[in-house]
């Protein structure tokens, strides 16, 4: 059990800096998800915490102890890898026991710990098998078992569900969440999947190009995305972005305006409503319609060629492709961003 503190972490490969100063405080027992597109530096950040990559600048503290120069095994962490990284020649039992064996723990203690973990993960019938005799989900459980038996200060997950099929992924996601709750171990979880991030995280760190764009609870991030990147990355379908210039006159008509400095206006698909032509923010033509059962997504094209997605709760939309409709925004759900993609603070 421990808190993790990241202080202005930087990483360079030769002259290229790939992580540009990330700071975060992770509370004891918290599950933090680091989410971002591939190449954003999220895995590198995790590997620095694990001790598999050196830290170029900044400091990492686990449980109040700066671990920058410690070997992975001295950091009291356990890691779950994307490809499970099980030892192919060892049985499930030996895979889970290996770390304990090296730590010099007695045989009977090892057996007790491994059996406990196996019971928790429903792996008991498979203890004598080799990894290749297990399914993907079972292998991932073994990898988690290997992490659990060591009762570390922190769990590090590096995209642990990416190799599983969609259905299993949802199931394992819930299992990881339940397990983490139960054990109360501080966890860092890296993923590129925003749904995974939203559902698992106590708080999430949204990363882009080596920068932590926003840190907050999933709903905070969803409801108040700090940058256009975060707004576009979190949420499916993503937020609609419209050129602020063309909307300015319409917005001015609607009353006091705090969007003066805005360059881009963002609206979530569920915050766009239909109205009659000429009466809303703008008019658009229906391009195509996706009926998902519980809801319907309307894909529209504005006259300026921007794409707007509207989420409609009505499962039986009556509009047809080619039809022109007016669009208005739910009040207070317009997000204003400046030229750098940063949120324009409201000036009420």
């Amino acid at each position: 059990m421990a808190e993790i503190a990241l202080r202005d972490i930087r990483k360079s490969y030769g002259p290229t800096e790939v992580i540009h100063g990330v700071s975060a405080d992770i509370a004891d027992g918290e599950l933090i998800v680091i989410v971002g597109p591939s190449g954003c530096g999220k895995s590198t950040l995790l590997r620095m915490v694990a001790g598999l990559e050196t830290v170029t600048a900044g400091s990492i503290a686990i449980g109040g102890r700066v671990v920058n120069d410690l070997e992975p095994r001295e950091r009291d962490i356990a890691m779950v890898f994307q490809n499970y990284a099980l030892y192919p020649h060892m049985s499930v039992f030996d895979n889970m026991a290996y770390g304990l064996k090296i730590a010099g723990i007695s045989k009977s203690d090892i057996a007790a710990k491994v059996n406990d973990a196996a019971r928790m993960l429903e792996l008991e019938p498979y203890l004598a098998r080799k990894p290749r005799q297990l399914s993907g989900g079972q292998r991932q459980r073994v990898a988690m078992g290997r992490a659990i038996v060591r009762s570390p200060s922190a769990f590090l997950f590096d995209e642990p569900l990416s190799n599983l099929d969609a259905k299993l992924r949802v199931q394992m996601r819930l299992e990881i969440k339940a397990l983490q709750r139960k054990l109360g171990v501080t966890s860092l979880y890296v993923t590129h999947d925003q749904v995974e991030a939203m559902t698992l995280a106590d708080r999430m760190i949204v990363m882009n190009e080596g920068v932590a764009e926003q840190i907050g609870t999933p709903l905070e991030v969803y409801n108040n995305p700090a940058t256009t990147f975060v707004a576009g990355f979190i949420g499916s379908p993503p937020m609609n972005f419209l050129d602020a210039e063309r909307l300015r006159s319409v917005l001015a008509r609607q009353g006091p305006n705090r969007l003066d400095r805005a360059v881009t206006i963002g609206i979530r698909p569920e915050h766009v409503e239909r109205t009659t032509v000429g009466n809303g923010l703008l008019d658009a033509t229906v391009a195509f319609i996706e009926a998902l059962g519980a809801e319907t997504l309307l894909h529209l094209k504005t006259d300026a060629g921007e794409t707007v997605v509207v989420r409609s709760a009505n499962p039986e939309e009556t509009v047809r492709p080619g039809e022109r409709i007016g669009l208005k925004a739910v009040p207070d759900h317009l997000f204003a961003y400046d030229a750098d993609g940063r949120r324009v603070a409201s000036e009420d």
Partner: protein
Amino acid sequence: MSGMVEKKGWRRVALHAGIITGIAIVCFPIYVAFVASTVTQGDLVRPPMPLLPGPHLIENYTRAIFQGYGTPVWRMLWNSLVMALGITVGKIAISIVSAYAIVYFRFPFRMFFFWMIFLTLMLPVEVRIVPTYAVAADLSLLNSYTGLILPLIASATATFLFRQLFLTIPDELVEAARIDGAGPIRFFRDILLPMSRTNIAALFVILFIYGWNQYLWPLLITTDADMNTIVMGIKHMLPTGDQTVEWPVIMATALLAMLPPVAVVLFMQRLFVKGLVESEK
């Protein structure tokens, strides 16, 4: 696939006939050698040559093993065994360790050393035999097992083979071991060695036969008859000039010389196949 194998009756017969003919052609000389080792010299030199085993098997083999020509065959078999095992074990040990160093450690001139090892592929024993002999003589390794084994131990091929194998082991596995707390030696012993089992078995077969069949180097380095290996021993038995020789004893020696490599192949083949079936990543 099975359609290709399941042929009509006559085709199967023809295929089998072909295989049997091939095997017969390969085996016939060995059979003749065996027959020759069971008869007397008199039977052998009198035409027609006997094609059925005679009654002198035990007598001929006993003579070969305990008497031979100059050196008894058991002594030469022993020398060969020590040399072949020494070369095999030494080559595997050295090459797996150097491959480990080259793949997993960052040290100055790493690639330079790798290419140096690789370059020795171009310099087999025969090419460097004179300087090697000079060095061995200076170190007074003549007529010793060390002298027989040591110069043949370095192996670029095996190093390269292990290197390629290690490169296929995923990085995540190495990292998992690091997080589990395995240091370099533990990682090598607990993870790398067991994962290389199959390759070690295959190399053992190949290198044992390579070592067993060494001729030129033992011929140079050993002058003492007690240090002769079996392969050079057979050559020594062959008649020079008008000397008469006991062909049955020579044939018995030749067959005895074949046994250890055959045994290694048969024994290791089982391990080898087991390794192939059991281990995959």
